[in-house]
């Protein structure tokens, strides 16, 4: 009997050297990294810990966690028999916020608080929620939504299908999702955003935004290159060049400081040209398949305007301009040998502003063109 008790006690002691109990603690220093590899279950990381240590517990006895308390703290769980799992498994971790996080949940959600260091958060399909991350952030899920606060450094956020919602980003940003929306605050650096639905960015440096379906709305950017397969593209202010294309939807720029190239299959284009440097490259190429083109240009602009309506409406004015335009009837002599009459109303007009210069090409297959003085 004593022998049996001794064997059991010895086994338990041996086991305790390799595995940790459900409650455990591991010291951690500033700037160290907390590494977690969770084969099952959700990860909940509370970053309000006051001690220089990581406390953790897992609420399921089937799961055994192995710890490695070195300079960095590493917690790794075993993969229990899935058939024996009943209900949700949750990893509850408390850590001080001045650490880096490297968390992988193989099949679960990740939820973290504010972190002063860098954060790498990955899951194969759950949702990821994060507070403020002062360092760099890489947040990747193969299916869920991502919601994060401000990120101090660069940010890479990816989901296969979920929506991405991010606060301000201090560095460059990359956002990718196949079926979700992208919503971001103010981004100091450049942004690459590929979405499955609408993309909203409040402010950024250079922006490259692409979506399969949905609007692209960028409040303020140094430069914009935007493309959507179906939706509108709008910007309140673009301080540099703009390139935009939509298969179907409007394009609207409330203030464009440099050259603009925009095209839409179906939809209207409205551009307010407000250059910071009147002598810079201010060419415009605006092409609408079905839709109106409206452009506002400053009176001091040196420009050569060329406006064409390919298929005029039955009875409506095609080209309306605040500036004198020379109408050119298709297939007719240009300079007044045969004056315009009702059958040859101008559907192709040209104008030289201040002697000509920046080429402004305005084209619609079916719609009207309006040129206004800014």
């Amino acid at each position, binding site marked *: 009997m004593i022998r049996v008790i001794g064997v059991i006690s010895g086994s338990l002691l041996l086991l305790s050297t390799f595995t940790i109990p459900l409650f455990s603690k591991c010291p951690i220093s500033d700037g160290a990294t907390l590494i977690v590899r969770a084969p099952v279950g959700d990860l909940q990381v509370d970053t309000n810990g006051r001690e220089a240590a990581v406390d953790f517990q897992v609420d399921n006895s089937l799961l055994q966690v192995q710890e490695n308390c070195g300079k960095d703290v590493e917690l790794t769980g075993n993969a229990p028999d899935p058939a024996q799992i*009943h209900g949700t498994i949750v990893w509850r971790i408390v850590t001080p916020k001045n650490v880096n996080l490297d968390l992988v949940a193989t099949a679960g959600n990740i939820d973290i608080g504010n972190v002063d260091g860098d954060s790498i958060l990955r899951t*194969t*399909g*759950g949702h990821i929620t994060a507070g403020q991350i002062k360092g760099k952030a890489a947040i990747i899920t193969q299916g869920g939504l991502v919601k994060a606060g401000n990120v101090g450094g660069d940010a890479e956020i990816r989901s296969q*299908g979920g929506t991405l919602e991010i606060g301000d980003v201090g560095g460059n940003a990359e956002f990718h999702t196949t079926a979700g929306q992208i919503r971001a605050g103010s981004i100091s650096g450049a942004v690459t955003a590929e979405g499955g639905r609408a993309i909203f960015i409040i402010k950024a440096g250079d922006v490259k935004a692409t979506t399969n379906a949905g609007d692209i709305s960028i409040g303020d950017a140094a430069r914009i290159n935007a493309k959507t397969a*179906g*939706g509108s593209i709008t910007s309140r202010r673009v301080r540099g060049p703009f390139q935009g294309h939509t*298969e179907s939807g409007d394009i609207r720029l409330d203030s464009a400081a440099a050259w603009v190239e925009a095209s839409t299959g179906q939809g209207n284009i409205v551009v307010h040209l407000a250059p910071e440097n009147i002598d810079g490259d201010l060419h415009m190429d605006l092409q609408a398949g079905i839709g109106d083109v409206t452009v506002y240009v400053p009176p001091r602009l040196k420009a050569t305007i060329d406006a064409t309506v390919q298929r005029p409406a039955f009875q409506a004015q095609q080209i309306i301009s605040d500036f004198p335009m020379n109408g050119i009837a298709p297939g007719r002599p240009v300079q007044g040998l045969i004056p315009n009459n009702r059958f040859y109303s101008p559907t192709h007009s040209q104008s030289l502003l201040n002697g000509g210069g920046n080429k402004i090409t305005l084209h619609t297959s079916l719609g009207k063109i309006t040129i206004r003085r800014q």
Partner: protein
Amino acid sequence: MSCKDYQHQITLLLYDELSESIRVELETHLQDCPNCHEAYESEKTMHSVLAEDAARWHDIPSDLLVESRRALADELDRIERKRSWWRVPAFSVVFTPMRLLESVALIAMGLALGVYVSNQRQVSPQIAANPTQEQISGIPRNGTISNLQIVNADPITGQVELAGEISQPLRFQGKMEDDTVRSLLFSALRDANNPGSRLKAVEVLAQKPTDEMIEEALINALVYDGDAGVRMRAIEALQKFAGEQHVRAAFMHTLGNDTDAGIRVKAIDALMARNSRDVELAKSLEAVTEKDDNPYIRSKVLEFVGTAK
């Protein structure tokens, strides 16, 4: 018309009182006929002398011309009514061969007019039925005509039949309950070339997912739409109803077939939230997701199975 007739119209031409067609005809004749042209020059000289003289008549009322025209028109009407009274055969006191001829001619003209009008209606009945200010002969002013073809052109009668297509901008307001609004939204859902339009249609329809027809449209979008964003928006709208049998069936189809892991994750989350402890569903989920390459989905199903037991 004879030269005499043309010369009678020269005065009216100088006073700009001729209709467009007669004016063009007269001007053409004046270019070809020296005698009439001479008469025109003479009349024009006299007209200019009178005009110079008239410039000194400051006390002429500005509406004199209008009043004169109105008086003339009234007088002509009065004469015409008087003439009509005794000329109409039914009221004619004396029945003469001339009256008989007039009657026959009138009947023949009536028949011809009837045939003409009926022919016109065959070509485009809506033109005569609903002319509005924005339309010219039934064609909207802002419409664009394409693929215009000449179906028929008769050089003798001048009758021409045209066929083509008209495109025009559409703007429509109404409530979700309106059949037209629904039809337009459902039509947008079927626009294969425009995922943005389909997405917006789903977003609007998602506001009323309780409506049976709208629910069907959303299920259709979830199962068949080629764009992942549209499918995701549809499943977001439907997730509250994942407990209903037909919605559940659509979600099961999505779990088994959708290529986008994000949408499958949404489906499994919704099914688990709305169908707790359903053993049959648990079995079906196990079968459907057995080969899913996403560990999260497999794990969630196992979790659900464990809970349902």
